[in-house]
């Protein structure tokens, strides 16, 4: 890909295809294209540039998950979608911080339907937080073993070598011990 298309705003269908194909280039073009819009929204509504980063990344993740789950239909422009989701996420954050003055300065069109996406997202967000907590509570070496095997998709052989287990059976036993504990920690938080 040449440098011109590298920096230009991607078309909406380019983005969807890019996400489905895990394209790094498209992700970058998407990110760079719409970040200023969200930055403008947030710094002019009582936020910092770090707040803008958090909110924008969350909005991208919402879009990403939506596309990946396969039920993404563009009811409006991608730009409007990202703006609406960011806007709702920021309003929620402001309310949590008690900094919402009841008045928000808008810079783009936004659609209420797209804003609801932000609400659906929170369920998955809760699961994410739970898993993060469970892994933290799990401790080493279980945490690394779990991450290596289930997230980084490393083979049992690799894991054996990294942790110095003498044979694969020992490693397997260890893995299932860890898995059982993690499961317990994860579901405990749900109740």
């Amino acid at each position: 890909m040449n440098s011109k298309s590298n920096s230009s705003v991607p078309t909406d269908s380019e983005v969807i295809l890019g996400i489905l194909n895990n394209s790094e280039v498209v992700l970058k073009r998407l990110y760079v294209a719409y970040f200023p819009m969200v930055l403008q929204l947030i710094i002019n509504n009582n936020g910092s540039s770090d707040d803008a980063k958090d909110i924008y990344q969350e909005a991208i993740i919402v879009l990403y998950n939506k596309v990946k789950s396969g039920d993404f239909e563009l009811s409006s422009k991608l730009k409007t979608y990202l703006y609406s989701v960011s806007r709702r996420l920021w309003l929620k954050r402001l309310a949590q911080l008690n900094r919402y003055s009841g008045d928000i300065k808008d810079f783009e069109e936004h659609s209420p339907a797209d804003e609801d996406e932000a609400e659906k997202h929170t369920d998955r967000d809760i699961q994410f937080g739970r898993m993060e907590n469970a892994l933290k509570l799990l401790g080493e070496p279980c945490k690394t073993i779990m991450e290596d095997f289930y997230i980084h998709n490393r083979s049992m052989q690799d894991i054996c070598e990294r942790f110095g287990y003498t044979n694969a059976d020992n490693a397997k036993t260890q893995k299932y011990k860890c898995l059982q504990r993690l499961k317990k920690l994860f579901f405990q938080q749900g109740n």
Partner: protein
Amino acid sequence: MSDRNLTEAIDRYLNGEMQGEELLRFEDLRRNNPDIDRQIAEHKSFLAALKHYGERLQLEERLNAIHEEIDVHTLKEELQIKPNWIIQLWRHHHSKISVAASIAIFAVLITLFFTGNLKRNDPAYMQLRQEIAQVKQSTAILGRQNRNLDNKVNAVKAAIKNTNPGSFAGTGFALTSNGYLVTNYHVVKGADSVYVQNADGESFHAKIIYTEPQNDIAFLQINDESFKPLGSVPYNIRKGKSDLGEDVFTVGYPSDAIRFSPGYLTSPSGFDGDSTAYEVSIAARPGNSGGPLLDTRGNLIGIISGKQSKYETSSFAKKSSYLMEAIQNIPADSLSKPLTLNSRNGLAGLSRTQQIKKLQNFIFMVKVYN
């Protein structure tokens, strides 16, 4: 089957690691045991959550890497809605501005304090005691002229006259024939010694026996051996109020020679609404302070005490009722001789020139040394 073995079996089953007979047996178990089936579903959702967690972590890493390449600071500068420049100036420099403002206010206060502008002494009110520097100069010129005439005697005389001109001068007038005088407090304020000089040029030592700074009144007593009692005082103190438009005059010593200044009463209140004083239209000069303000029949109605610096002919006189009050306030032990006020008016019916002739023996130049 222990818990751990079951977990392992479910995990392997979902990972597609089971084969052949083992897989068939496990599927059979699952069909017949709803609890196992539920645990399999639970494990499935757990694995999905774990996978999702991993994906999101990776995505966040990628996004952070992209974010690193963006020049957020420059973008922020561009996108921030700029408040107008005054607010910006205030936001960026408010501490400096505050400090500067405090220093400025402080400096103004200090300046006002040292220039005396903070005191009640409004610059528009001018007290009429006279600084002798001017007189000094004129006598010095006189002295030179005398030398030019090469008249040594005259020169010595002039020098003698010159030795002690005093620092300030004002006017005072007699209350009684035995040597009680009244003048302005501001004339004798801070005096080391006070001399009074009559129309004939004779000086007598006097001492301050009582002052009322709030009314700007001071009482002197001549305590000089060479002083001979005056005749009876020709004027008396008017106790009531005087009316607007009345013809009034004062006699005093704005210079070395006695001077008559006529005028009329223009307002029942003095400077800045001061109800203890009259405003009179008299061209008073420095040195007139402490002089008597008299009406046409020779009643004493006030004491000249100041003028307005802006208008040449607007002067102020303390009302005579405050003089009466002050006289009553003099402590008895300050009086070595009786202070008996004259109740007879010896001026009524006389012409102005005759009035002044009679008056001038009772009016003194007050010379103050400090």
